Protein backbone atom coordinates (compact mmCIF):
# COMPACT_ATOMS: atom_id res chain seq x y z
CA UNK A 1 0.00 0.00 0.00
CA UNK A 2 1.35 3.36 -0.97
CA UNK A 3 1.64 6.05 1.66
CA UNK A 4 0.54 9.19 -0.14
CA UNK A 5 1.33 11.33 2.92
CA UNK A 6 5.00 11.12 2.03
CA UNK A 7 4.45 12.18 -1.59
CA UNK A 8 5.64 15.50 -2.91
CA UNK A 9 4.38 17.10 -6.13
CA UNK A 10 6.63 15.10 -8.45
CA UNK A 11 5.74 11.83 -6.76
CA UNK A 12 2.06 12.50 -7.34
CA UNK A 13 2.64 13.56 -10.93
CA UNK A 14 4.23 10.25 -11.83
CA UNK A 15 1.97 8.04 -9.74
CA UNK A 16 -0.22 5.81 -11.93
CA UNK A 17 -3.26 5.98 -9.66
CA UNK A 18 -3.00 9.73 -9.43
CA UNK A 19 -2.69 10.10 -13.20
CA UNK A 20 -5.70 7.90 -13.74
CA UNK A 21 -7.76 10.01 -11.39
CA UNK A 22 -6.86 13.23 -13.19
CA UNK A 23 -7.20 11.82 -16.71
CA UNK A 24 -10.23 9.60 -16.38
CA UNK A 25 -12.18 11.10 -13.48
CA UNK A 26 -13.67 7.78 -12.50
CA UNK A 27 -16.30 7.72 -9.81
CA UNK A 28 -14.36 5.43 -7.47
CA UNK A 29 -11.19 7.52 -7.81
CA UNK A 30 -13.06 10.75 -7.09
CA UNK A 31 -14.43 9.15 -3.97
CA UNK A 32 -11.03 7.97 -2.84
CA UNK A 33 -9.19 11.24 -3.44
CA UNK A 34 -11.87 13.48 -1.99
CA UNK A 35 -11.93 11.40 1.17
CA UNK A 36 -8.17 11.34 1.33
CA UNK A 37 -7.98 15.11 0.96
CA UNK A 38 -10.51 15.58 3.74
CA UNK A 39 -8.32 13.50 5.99
CA UNK A 40 -5.16 15.32 4.94
CA UNK A 41 -6.12 18.98 4.49
CA UNK A 42 -2.48 20.07 4.52
CA UNK A 43 -1.97 18.26 1.22
CA UNK A 44 -4.47 20.33 -0.76
CA UNK A 45 -1.89 22.62 -2.29
CA UNK A 46 0.48 19.81 -3.24
CA UNK A 47 -2.32 17.82 -4.86
CA UNK A 48 -3.67 20.88 -6.66
CA UNK A 49 -0.26 21.67 -8.13
CA UNK A 50 0.31 18.08 -9.16
CA UNK A 51 -3.13 18.03 -10.78
CA UNK A 52 -2.32 21.10 -12.84
CA UNK A 53 0.85 19.55 -14.14
CA UNK A 54 -0.84 16.28 -15.07
CA UNK A 55 -3.74 18.17 -16.65
CA UNK A 56 -1.34 20.21 -18.73
CA UNK A 57 0.07 17.03 -20.25
CA UNK A 58 -2.48 16.36 -22.96
CA UNK A 59 -2.08 14.54 -26.21
CA UNK A 60 -4.42 15.05 -29.13
CA UNK A 61 -6.64 12.13 -30.08
CA UNK A 62 -5.40 10.16 -33.05
CA UNK A 63 -7.18 11.08 -36.24
CA UNK A 64 -8.13 7.49 -36.82
CA UNK A 65 -11.66 6.21 -36.35
CA UNK A 66 -13.26 2.85 -35.74
CA UNK A 67 -14.05 2.29 -39.41
CA UNK A 68 -10.42 2.84 -40.37
CA UNK A 69 -9.30 0.40 -37.70
CA UNK A 70 -11.76 -2.17 -39.06
CA UNK A 71 -10.35 -1.59 -42.52
CA UNK A 72 -6.86 -2.34 -41.22
CA UNK A 73 -8.14 -5.44 -39.43
CA UNK A 74 -9.69 -6.86 -42.59
CA UNK A 75 -6.55 -5.97 -44.52
CA UNK A 76 -4.57 -8.04 -42.02
CA UNK A 77 -7.05 -10.90 -42.21
CA UNK A 78 -6.77 -10.87 -46.01
CA UNK A 79 -3.00 -10.97 -45.89
CA UNK A 80 -2.76 -13.87 -43.47
CA UNK A 81 -5.32 -15.96 -45.29
CA UNK A 82 -3.64 -15.44 -48.64
CA UNK A 83 -0.30 -16.26 -47.04
CA UNK A 84 -1.60 -19.51 -45.67
CA UNK A 85 -2.45 -20.72 -49.13
CA UNK A 86 1.02 -20.17 -50.53
CA UNK A 87 2.73 -21.09 -47.30
CA UNK A 88 3.84 -24.58 -48.26
CA UNK A 89 6.49 -23.73 -50.87
CA UNK A 90 7.95 -20.82 -48.92
CA UNK A 91 10.34 -21.51 -46.07
CA UNK A 92 9.16 -19.80 -42.95
CA UNK A 93 12.61 -18.52 -41.99
CA UNK A 94 12.93 -16.80 -45.32
CA UNK A 95 9.57 -15.16 -44.82
CA UNK A 96 10.50 -13.75 -41.44
CA UNK A 97 14.05 -12.61 -41.93
CA UNK A 98 13.89 -11.66 -45.57
CA UNK A 99 10.72 -9.68 -45.20
CA UNK A 100 11.18 -6.33 -46.84
CA UNK A 101 8.56 -3.75 -46.17
CA UNK A 102 8.10 -2.76 -49.79
CA UNK A 103 7.15 -6.31 -50.68
CA UNK A 104 4.54 -6.17 -48.01
CA UNK A 105 3.34 -2.85 -49.26
CA UNK A 106 2.98 -4.26 -52.76
CA UNK A 107 1.11 -7.32 -51.53
CA UNK A 108 -1.18 -5.20 -49.46
CA UNK A 109 -1.83 -2.85 -52.33
CA UNK A 110 -2.94 -5.83 -54.38
CA UNK A 111 -5.34 -6.96 -51.70
CA UNK A 112 -6.77 -3.53 -51.29
CA UNK A 113 -7.28 -2.94 -54.98
CA UNK A 114 -8.79 -6.42 -55.17
CA UNK A 115 -11.44 -5.63 -52.63
CA UNK A 116 -11.95 -2.22 -54.17
CA UNK A 117 -12.69 -3.84 -57.48
CA UNK A 118 -15.16 -6.16 -55.85
CA UNK A 119 -16.82 -3.28 -54.12
CA UNK A 120 -17.18 -1.26 -57.29
CA UNK A 121 -18.37 -4.21 -59.27
CA UNK A 122 -20.83 -5.24 -56.60
CA UNK A 123 -22.46 -1.86 -56.32
CA UNK A 124 -22.63 -1.40 -60.07
CA UNK A 125 -24.35 -4.68 -60.76
CA UNK A 126 -26.42 -4.46 -57.61
CA UNK A 127 -30.05 -4.44 -58.75
CA UNK A 128 -31.40 -3.68 -55.28
CA UNK A 129 -29.29 -0.60 -54.55
CA UNK A 130 -31.41 2.36 -53.51
CA UNK A 131 -30.57 4.31 -56.65
CA UNK A 132 -31.68 1.56 -59.01
CA UNK A 133 -34.89 0.89 -57.06
CA UNK A 134 -35.80 4.56 -57.05
CA UNK A 135 -34.87 5.21 -60.68
CA UNK A 136 -37.70 5.34 -63.19
CA UNK A 137 -40.34 5.62 -60.49
CA UNK A 138 -42.24 8.83 -59.82
CA UNK A 139 -41.37 9.21 -56.18
CA UNK A 140 -41.38 11.81 -53.44
CA UNK A 141 -38.00 11.85 -51.74
CA UNK A 142 -36.93 13.16 -48.32
CA UNK A 143 -33.23 13.47 -47.52
CA UNK A 144 -31.88 14.15 -44.06
CA UNK A 145 -28.50 15.78 -44.57
CA UNK A 146 -28.28 16.99 -40.97
CA UNK A 147 -26.77 15.12 -38.04
CA UNK A 148 -30.09 15.08 -36.20
CA UNK A 149 -33.07 12.75 -36.73
CA UNK A 150 -35.87 14.13 -38.86
CA UNK A 151 -39.51 13.25 -38.15
CA UNK A 152 -41.78 12.81 -41.19
CA UNK A 153 -45.46 12.08 -41.40
CA UNK A 154 -46.73 9.92 -44.24
CA UNK A 155 -50.13 10.42 -45.90
CA UNK A 156 -51.50 7.31 -44.13
CA UNK A 157 -50.61 8.72 -40.70
CA UNK A 158 -47.49 6.60 -40.18
CA UNK A 159 -44.49 8.34 -38.68
CA UNK A 160 -40.92 7.99 -39.84
CA UNK A 161 -37.93 9.17 -37.82
CA UNK A 162 -35.25 9.45 -40.45
CA UNK A 163 -31.67 9.08 -39.17
CA UNK A 164 -28.74 11.31 -40.06
CA UNK A 165 -27.46 11.09 -43.65
CA UNK A 166 -30.43 8.96 -44.69
CA UNK A 167 -32.94 9.08 -47.53
CA UNK A 168 -36.43 7.79 -47.99
CA UNK A 169 -38.87 7.89 -50.89
CA UNK A 170 -42.40 6.76 -51.70
CA UNK A 171 -44.94 7.04 -54.50
CA UNK A 172 -47.12 10.11 -55.11
CA UNK A 173 -50.11 7.88 -54.69
CA UNK A 174 -48.94 6.53 -51.33
CA UNK A 175 -51.90 5.91 -49.03
CA UNK A 176 -54.45 7.64 -51.23
CA UNK A 177 -58.04 6.32 -51.18
CA UNK A 178 -57.61 4.97 -54.63
CA UNK A 179 -54.83 2.56 -53.67
CA UNK A 180 -56.76 1.50 -50.56
CA UNK A 181 -59.54 0.19 -52.71
CA UNK A 182 -57.18 -1.81 -54.79
CA UNK A 183 -55.51 -3.30 -51.77
CA UNK A 184 -52.09 -2.11 -52.88
CA UNK A 185 -49.17 -2.22 -50.49
CA UNK A 186 -47.70 0.90 -48.89
CA UNK A 187 -44.11 0.85 -50.17
CA UNK A 188 -41.19 3.02 -49.07
CA UNK A 189 -37.56 2.87 -50.19
CA UNK A 190 -34.85 3.49 -47.62
CA UNK A 191 -31.18 4.29 -47.79
CA UNK A 192 -29.71 4.66 -44.30
CA UNK A 193 -31.48 4.34 -41.00
CA UNK A 194 -35.05 5.04 -39.94
CA UNK A 195 -37.49 4.22 -37.16
CA UNK A 196 -41.02 3.47 -38.35
CA UNK A 197 -44.29 3.78 -36.44
CA UNK A 198 -46.78 2.30 -38.81
CA UNK A 199 -50.52 3.00 -38.70
CA UNK A 200 -52.51 -0.22 -38.63
CA UNK A 201 -54.10 -1.13 -41.93
CA UNK A 202 -54.47 -4.88 -42.48
CA UNK A 203 -55.70 -4.29 -46.06
CA UNK A 204 -52.50 -2.61 -47.09
CA UNK A 205 -49.26 -4.06 -45.79
CA UNK A 206 -46.48 -1.53 -45.22
CA UNK A 207 -43.23 -2.52 -46.91
CA UNK A 208 -39.74 -1.09 -46.50
CA UNK A 209 -37.30 -1.81 -49.31
CA UNK A 210 -33.76 -1.50 -47.99
CA UNK A 211 -31.11 -2.74 -50.38
CA UNK A 212 -31.43 -6.51 -50.61
CA UNK A 213 -34.13 -7.00 -48.06
CA UNK A 214 -37.79 -6.15 -47.62
CA UNK A 215 -39.48 -5.65 -44.25
CA UNK A 216 -43.24 -6.15 -44.27
CA UNK A 217 -45.67 -5.17 -41.53
CA UNK A 218 -49.32 -4.50 -40.91
CA UNK A 219 -48.97 -2.04 -38.04
CA UNK A 220 -46.09 -1.84 -35.61
CA UNK A 221 -42.92 0.07 -34.79
CA UNK A 222 -39.44 -0.92 -35.86
CA UNK A 223 -36.07 0.36 -37.08
CA UNK A 224 -34.33 -0.42 -40.35
CA UNK A 225 -30.65 0.38 -40.86
CA UNK A 226 -29.26 -0.07 -44.34
CA UNK A 227 -26.50 2.22 -45.56
CA UNK A 228 -24.98 1.46 -48.96
CA UNK A 229 -21.48 1.07 -47.51
CA UNK A 230 -22.51 -1.09 -44.53
CA UNK A 231 -21.84 -4.80 -44.78
CA UNK A 232 -24.99 -5.63 -42.88
CA UNK A 233 -28.64 -4.58 -42.87
CA UNK A 234 -30.38 -4.47 -39.50
CA UNK A 235 -34.05 -4.60 -38.66
CA UNK A 236 -35.04 -4.10 -35.03
CA UNK A 237 -38.60 -4.53 -33.74
CA UNK A 238 -39.97 -2.34 -30.96
CA UNK A 239 -43.59 -3.50 -30.92
CA UNK A 240 -45.78 -5.86 -32.95
CA UNK A 241 -44.52 -8.34 -35.52
CA UNK A 242 -42.74 -7.84 -38.78
CA UNK A 243 -41.67 -10.20 -41.50
CA UNK A 244 -38.45 -9.83 -43.42
CA UNK A 245 -37.44 -11.46 -46.68
CA UNK A 246 -34.79 -10.97 -49.32
CA UNK A 247 -35.77 -9.04 -52.45
CA UNK A 248 -34.15 -11.66 -54.63
CA UNK A 249 -36.57 -14.35 -53.48
CA UNK A 250 -39.08 -15.36 -56.08
CA UNK A 251 -42.72 -15.47 -55.06
CA UNK A 252 -42.58 -19.21 -54.51
CA UNK A 253 -39.46 -19.21 -52.38
CA UNK A 254 -40.17 -16.02 -50.48
CA UNK A 255 -42.36 -17.86 -48.00
CA UNK A 256 -39.43 -20.15 -47.25
CA UNK A 257 -36.95 -17.44 -46.47
CA UNK A 258 -39.40 -15.15 -44.73
CA UNK A 259 -38.39 -14.45 -41.15
CA UNK A 260 -40.78 -13.31 -38.48
CA UNK A 261 -39.44 -10.85 -35.92
CA UNK A 262 -41.05 -10.12 -32.56
CA UNK A 263 -40.32 -7.29 -30.07
CA UNK A 264 -36.75 -6.87 -28.87
CA UNK A 265 -35.50 -9.09 -31.66
CA UNK A 266 -33.11 -7.87 -34.27
CA UNK A 267 -32.40 -9.33 -37.64
CA UNK A 268 -28.91 -8.91 -39.00
CA UNK A 269 -28.58 -9.58 -42.70
CA UNK A 270 -25.03 -10.12 -43.84
CA UNK A 271 -24.93 -8.75 -47.36
CA UNK A 272 -21.97 -10.57 -48.86
CA UNK A 273 -22.83 -13.98 -47.42
CA UNK A 274 -26.57 -13.32 -47.92
CA UNK A 275 -27.22 -14.78 -44.51
CA UNK A 276 -29.80 -13.90 -41.88
CA UNK A 277 -29.26 -14.06 -38.19
CA UNK A 278 -31.84 -13.43 -35.52
CA UNK A 279 -30.54 -12.03 -32.24
CA UNK A 280 -31.96 -10.49 -29.07
CA UNK A 281 -31.16 -6.86 -28.27
CA UNK A 282 -28.45 -6.19 -25.70
CA UNK A 283 -30.85 -4.31 -23.53
CA UNK A 284 -34.43 -5.37 -24.25
CA UNK A 285 -37.07 -2.78 -23.46
CA UNK A 286 -40.46 -3.31 -21.85
CA UNK A 287 -43.35 -3.36 -24.27
CA UNK A 288 -46.22 -3.12 -21.79
CA UNK A 289 -47.31 -0.11 -19.69
CA UNK A 290 -44.87 0.57 -16.82
CA UNK A 291 -47.44 -0.39 -14.18
CA UNK A 292 -47.13 -4.03 -15.20
CA UNK A 293 -43.42 -4.13 -14.53
CA UNK A 294 -44.01 -2.93 -11.00
CA UNK A 295 -46.04 -6.05 -10.33
CA UNK A 296 -43.04 -8.33 -10.93
CA UNK A 297 -42.67 -9.08 -7.23
CA UNK A 298 -42.81 -12.75 -6.30
CA UNK A 299 -43.12 -14.67 -3.10
CA UNK A 300 -42.66 -18.40 -3.57
CA UNK A 301 -44.20 -18.14 -7.03
CA UNK A 302 -44.07 -21.06 -9.48
CA UNK A 303 -41.39 -20.63 -12.10
CA UNK A 304 -43.63 -20.96 -15.12
CA UNK A 305 -45.67 -17.98 -13.89
CA UNK A 306 -42.51 -15.88 -13.51
CA UNK A 307 -41.24 -16.80 -16.97
CA UNK A 308 -44.71 -16.30 -18.43
CA UNK A 309 -44.86 -12.77 -17.00
CA UNK A 310 -41.37 -11.88 -18.21
CA UNK A 311 -42.21 -13.20 -21.63
CA UNK A 312 -45.23 -10.92 -21.81
CA UNK A 313 -43.50 -7.84 -20.45
CA UNK A 314 -40.65 -8.02 -22.97
CA UNK A 315 -42.40 -9.89 -25.77
CA UNK A 316 -39.50 -12.36 -25.74
CA UNK A 317 -40.04 -16.09 -25.98
CA UNK A 318 -38.56 -18.05 -23.07
CA UNK A 319 -38.14 -21.76 -23.68
CA UNK A 320 -37.91 -24.14 -20.74
CA UNK A 321 -38.88 -27.65 -19.73
CA UNK A 322 -41.96 -27.03 -17.60
CA UNK A 323 -42.10 -30.63 -16.38
CA UNK A 324 -38.56 -30.50 -15.14
CA UNK A 325 -38.95 -27.09 -13.56
CA UNK A 326 -42.45 -27.41 -12.15
CA UNK A 327 -41.18 -27.78 -8.58
CA UNK A 328 -39.08 -24.61 -8.77
CA UNK A 329 -40.35 -21.51 -7.04
CA UNK A 330 -39.00 -17.98 -7.01
CA UNK A 331 -39.00 -15.33 -4.30
CA UNK A 332 -37.69 -12.09 -5.74
CA UNK A 333 -38.41 -8.49 -6.61
CA UNK A 334 -37.79 -8.24 -10.34
CA UNK A 335 -39.24 -4.81 -10.96
CA UNK A 336 -36.17 -2.69 -11.63
CA UNK A 337 -33.33 -4.68 -13.16
CA UNK A 338 -32.58 -4.91 -16.84
CA UNK A 339 -33.87 -8.02 -18.60
CA UNK A 340 -30.70 -10.10 -18.54
CA UNK A 341 -30.10 -9.31 -14.90
CA UNK A 342 -33.57 -10.58 -14.10
CA UNK A 343 -32.78 -13.78 -15.94
CA UNK A 344 -29.48 -14.20 -14.10
CA UNK A 345 -31.18 -13.66 -10.75
CA UNK A 346 -33.76 -16.33 -11.43
CA UNK A 347 -31.21 -18.73 -12.86
CA UNK A 348 -28.86 -18.39 -9.91
CA UNK A 349 -31.79 -19.02 -7.56
CA UNK A 350 -32.75 -22.28 -9.24
CA UNK A 351 -29.21 -23.29 -10.19
CA UNK A 352 -29.83 -23.06 -13.92
CA UNK A 353 -28.31 -21.06 -16.74
CA UNK A 354 -29.66 -19.49 -19.89
CA UNK A 355 -28.56 -19.25 -23.49
CA UNK A 356 -29.69 -16.96 -26.29
CA UNK A 357 -30.54 -19.04 -29.31
CA UNK A 358 -32.17 -17.71 -32.46
CA UNK A 359 -33.65 -14.65 -30.77
CA UNK A 360 -35.10 -16.62 -27.88
CA UNK A 361 -34.05 -17.40 -24.33
CA UNK A 362 -33.42 -21.07 -23.62
CA UNK A 363 -33.22 -22.17 -19.97
CA UNK A 364 -31.02 -25.13 -19.13
CA UNK A 365 -31.39 -26.79 -15.77
CA UNK A 366 -31.42 -30.15 -14.09
CA UNK A 367 -34.59 -29.25 -12.19
CA UNK A 368 -35.45 -28.56 -8.56
CA UNK A 369 -36.03 -31.08 -5.79
Amino acid sequence: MKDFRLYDISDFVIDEDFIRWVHEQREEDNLFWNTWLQQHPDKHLVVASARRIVESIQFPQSNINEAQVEQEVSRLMNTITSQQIKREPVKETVMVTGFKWWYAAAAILLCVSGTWYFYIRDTRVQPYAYSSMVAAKQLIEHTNTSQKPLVLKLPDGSRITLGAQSRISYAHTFGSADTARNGVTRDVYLLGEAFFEVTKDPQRPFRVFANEIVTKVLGTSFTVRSFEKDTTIQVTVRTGKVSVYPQAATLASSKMSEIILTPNQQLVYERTGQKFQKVLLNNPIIIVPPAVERSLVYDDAPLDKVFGDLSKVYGINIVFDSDLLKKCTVTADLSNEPFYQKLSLICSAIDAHYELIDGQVVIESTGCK
Partner: protein
Amino acid sequence: MNINLSKLLKLNNDTQLEALWLQRLQQNDEQALAAIMRKYYTALYNYGTRFTNDDALAKDCIQEVFISLWQRRESAAEILSPRYYLLRAVKNKVLKSLHKQTIRAGTIDDESAYDFLQEFSVEKLIIDKQMSEEQAAILRKTMAQLTKRQHELIYLKFYQHLDHAQIAGLMNLSRQSVYNLLHETIQKLRSLWQAELFNQ
Protein backbone atom coordinates in the same frame (compact mmCIF):
# COMPACT_ATOMS: atom_id res chain seq x y z
CA MET B 1 -9.65 -0.82 0.52
CA ASN B 2 -12.44 -1.15 -2.01
CA ILE B 3 -10.93 1.17 -4.53
CA ASN B 4 -7.71 -0.71 -4.95
CA LEU B 5 -9.49 -4.02 -5.03
CA SER B 6 -11.76 -2.96 -7.87
CA LYS B 7 -8.81 -1.62 -9.78
CA LEU B 8 -6.99 -4.87 -9.25
CA LEU B 9 -9.99 -6.83 -10.47
CA LYS B 10 -10.25 -4.79 -13.60
CA LEU B 11 -6.54 -5.17 -14.18
CA ASN B 12 -6.81 -8.89 -13.70
CA ASN B 13 -9.67 -9.14 -16.13
CA ASP B 14 -7.71 -7.25 -18.75
CA THR B 15 -4.59 -9.34 -18.37
CA GLN B 16 -6.63 -12.52 -18.22
CA LEU B 17 -8.43 -11.59 -21.40
CA GLU B 18 -5.13 -10.85 -23.10
CA ALA B 19 -3.64 -14.11 -21.90
CA LEU B 20 -6.66 -15.85 -23.36
CA TRP B 21 -6.22 -14.10 -26.71
CA LEU B 22 -2.55 -15.06 -26.84
CA GLN B 23 -3.41 -18.63 -26.01
CA ARG B 24 -6.01 -18.73 -28.78
CA LEU B 25 -3.55 -17.09 -31.13
CA GLN B 26 -1.17 -19.94 -30.42
CA GLN B 27 -3.94 -22.30 -31.45
CA ASN B 28 -4.19 -20.60 -34.87
CA ASP B 29 -7.27 -18.50 -34.08
CA GLU B 30 -7.29 -15.56 -36.50
CA GLN B 31 -10.05 -13.84 -34.58
CA ALA B 32 -7.76 -13.57 -31.56
CA LEU B 33 -5.24 -11.74 -33.74
CA ALA B 34 -8.02 -9.42 -34.94
CA ALA B 35 -9.12 -8.78 -31.35
CA ILE B 36 -5.59 -7.83 -30.30
CA MET B 37 -5.29 -5.49 -33.27
CA ARG B 38 -8.63 -3.84 -32.51
CA LYS B 39 -7.64 -3.23 -28.93
CA TYR B 40 -4.24 -1.69 -29.63
CA TYR B 41 -4.59 -0.15 -33.06
CA THR B 42 -5.20 3.43 -31.93
CA ALA B 43 -2.33 3.34 -29.44
CA LEU B 44 0.07 1.82 -31.99
CA TYR B 45 -0.95 4.20 -34.74
CA ASN B 46 -0.52 7.11 -32.39
CA TYR B 47 2.95 5.93 -31.39
CA GLY B 48 4.00 5.08 -34.94
CA THR B 49 3.08 8.54 -36.20
CA ARG B 50 5.33 10.09 -33.53
CA PHE B 51 8.28 9.03 -35.66
CA THR B 52 7.00 9.93 -39.10
CA ASN B 53 4.43 12.18 -40.71
CA ASP B 54 3.78 9.52 -43.31
CA ASP B 55 0.72 7.80 -41.93
CA ALA B 56 0.55 5.25 -44.78
CA LEU B 57 4.02 4.13 -43.76
CA ALA B 58 2.94 3.87 -40.13
CA LYS B 59 -0.08 1.77 -41.12
CA ASP B 60 2.05 -0.54 -43.26
CA CYS B 61 4.48 -1.04 -40.41
CA ILE B 62 1.66 -1.95 -38.03
CA GLN B 63 0.39 -4.46 -40.60
CA GLU B 64 3.83 -6.04 -40.75
CA VAL B 65 4.14 -6.23 -37.00
CA PHE B 66 0.88 -8.17 -36.84
CA ILE B 67 1.86 -10.38 -39.76
CA SER B 68 5.04 -11.38 -38.00
CA LEU B 69 3.14 -11.85 -34.75
CA TRP B 70 0.94 -14.28 -36.70
CA GLN B 71 3.98 -16.05 -38.14
CA ARG B 72 5.49 -16.43 -34.69
CA ARG B 73 2.22 -17.37 -33.04
CA GLU B 74 3.70 -20.66 -31.72
CA SER B 75 5.54 -18.65 -29.10
CA ALA B 76 2.79 -16.09 -28.49
CA ALA B 77 2.21 -17.21 -24.91
CA GLU B 78 5.68 -15.97 -24.01
CA ILE B 79 4.55 -12.38 -24.53
CA LEU B 80 3.93 -10.93 -21.10
CA SER B 81 2.62 -7.52 -22.04
CA PRO B 82 1.13 -7.28 -25.53
CA ARG B 83 1.05 -3.50 -25.32
CA TYR B 84 4.77 -3.31 -24.64
CA TYR B 85 5.62 -6.00 -27.19
CA LEU B 86 3.62 -4.27 -29.92
CA LEU B 87 4.82 -0.75 -29.17
CA ARG B 88 8.39 -1.94 -29.27
CA ALA B 89 7.86 -3.83 -32.53
CA VAL B 90 6.14 -0.86 -34.18
CA LYS B 91 8.88 1.53 -33.11
CA ASN B 92 11.60 -0.75 -34.48
CA LYS B 93 9.73 -1.32 -37.72
CA VAL B 94 9.07 2.36 -38.36
CA LEU B 95 12.64 3.41 -37.56
CA LYS B 96 14.03 0.66 -39.79
CA SER B 97 11.84 1.70 -42.71
CA LEU B 98 12.81 5.33 -42.28
CA HIS B 99 16.45 4.35 -42.09
CA LYS B 100 16.22 2.38 -45.32
CA GLN B 101 14.57 5.32 -47.04
CA THR B 102 17.34 7.67 -46.00
CA ILE B 103 20.00 5.21 -47.17
CA ARG B 104 18.31 4.92 -50.54
CA ALA B 105 18.05 8.68 -50.69
CA GLY B 106 21.82 8.78 -50.22
CA THR B 107 21.91 10.53 -46.88
CA ILE B 108 23.64 8.41 -44.29
CA ASP B 109 22.25 8.79 -40.87
CA ASP B 110 22.67 7.30 -37.46
CA GLU B 111 19.75 5.02 -36.76
CA SER B 112 19.74 5.75 -33.06
CA ALA B 113 19.09 9.45 -33.60
CA TYR B 114 15.45 9.75 -34.52
CA ASP B 115 12.84 12.43 -34.33
CA PHE B 116 10.06 12.27 -31.83
CA LEU B 117 7.37 14.57 -33.05
CA GLN B 118 6.13 16.55 -30.13
CA GLU B 119 2.48 17.01 -30.06
CA PHE B 120 1.03 18.38 -26.88
CA SER B 121 -2.45 19.57 -27.32
CA VAL B 122 -2.82 22.98 -25.80
CA GLU B 123 -5.99 23.86 -27.69
CA LYS B 124 -7.97 21.28 -25.78
CA LEU B 125 -6.80 22.78 -22.50
CA ILE B 126 -7.91 26.23 -23.53
CA ILE B 127 -11.40 24.89 -24.08
CA ASP B 128 -11.67 22.31 -21.30
CA LYS B 129 -9.82 23.99 -18.50
CA GLN B 130 -10.56 27.55 -19.58
CA MET B 131 -6.90 28.30 -19.77
CA SER B 132 -6.09 31.74 -21.07
CA GLU B 133 -4.15 32.28 -24.30
CA GLU B 134 -1.38 33.72 -22.19
CA GLN B 135 -1.15 30.64 -20.02
CA ALA B 136 -1.26 28.41 -23.06
CA ALA B 137 1.64 30.32 -24.57
CA ILE B 138 3.67 29.71 -21.42
CA LEU B 139 2.86 26.02 -21.54
CA ARG B 140 3.87 25.79 -25.18
CA LYS B 141 7.14 27.48 -24.38
CA THR B 142 7.72 25.09 -21.48
CA MET B 143 7.07 22.06 -23.62
CA ALA B 144 9.35 23.37 -26.33
CA GLN B 145 12.21 23.40 -23.86
CA LEU B 146 12.01 19.66 -23.30
CA THR B 147 14.33 17.41 -25.25
CA LYS B 148 13.04 14.80 -27.68
CA ARG B 149 13.84 12.05 -25.21
CA GLN B 150 11.89 13.85 -22.52
CA HIS B 151 8.96 14.15 -24.89
CA GLU B 152 9.03 10.46 -25.66
CA LEU B 153 9.30 9.64 -21.99
CA ILE B 154 6.33 11.78 -21.06
CA TYR B 155 4.38 10.35 -23.95
CA LEU B 156 5.05 6.74 -22.91
CA LYS B 157 4.25 7.49 -19.31
CA PHE B 158 1.16 9.66 -19.65
CA TYR B 159 -0.36 8.51 -22.93
CA GLN B 160 0.60 4.85 -23.18
CA HIS B 161 0.63 4.34 -19.41
CA LEU B 162 3.68 2.08 -19.44
CA ASP B 163 5.57 1.27 -16.26
CA HIS B 164 9.15 2.37 -15.72
CA ALA B 165 10.70 -0.97 -16.65
CA GLN B 166 8.81 -0.97 -19.97
CA ILE B 167 9.78 2.60 -20.73
CA ALA B 168 13.39 1.68 -20.00
CA GLY B 169 13.14 -1.20 -22.47
CA LEU B 170 11.60 0.94 -25.21
CA MET B 171 14.05 3.79 -24.86
CA ASN B 172 17.18 1.66 -24.28
CA LEU B 173 17.76 3.18 -20.86
CA SER B 174 18.27 1.71 -17.43
CA ARG B 175 15.38 1.89 -15.00
CA GLN B 176 17.34 4.28 -12.87
CA SER B 177 17.92 6.64 -15.80
CA VAL B 178 14.23 6.54 -16.63
CA TYR B 179 13.43 7.50 -13.09
CA ASN B 180 16.00 10.28 -13.08
CA LEU B 181 14.98 11.63 -16.46
CA LEU B 182 11.34 11.57 -15.42
CA HIS B 183 12.03 13.49 -12.24
CA GLU B 184 14.18 15.98 -14.06
CA THR B 185 11.40 16.51 -16.61
CA ILE B 186 8.72 16.93 -14.02
CA GLN B 187 10.87 19.38 -12.08
CA LYS B 188 11.33 21.43 -15.20
CA LEU B 189 7.64 21.50 -15.91
CA ARG B 190 6.90 22.24 -12.33
CA SER B 191 9.25 25.15 -11.85
CA LEU B 192 8.21 26.87 -15.05
CA TRP B 193 4.59 26.12 -14.53
CA GLN B 194 4.55 27.29 -10.96
CA ALA B 195 6.71 30.33 -11.43
CA GLU B 196 4.65 31.57 -14.32
CA LEU B 197 1.16 30.62 -13.31
CA PHE B 198 0.86 30.53 -9.58
CA ASN B 199 2.52 33.88 -9.04
CA GLN B 200 0.44 35.77 -11.52
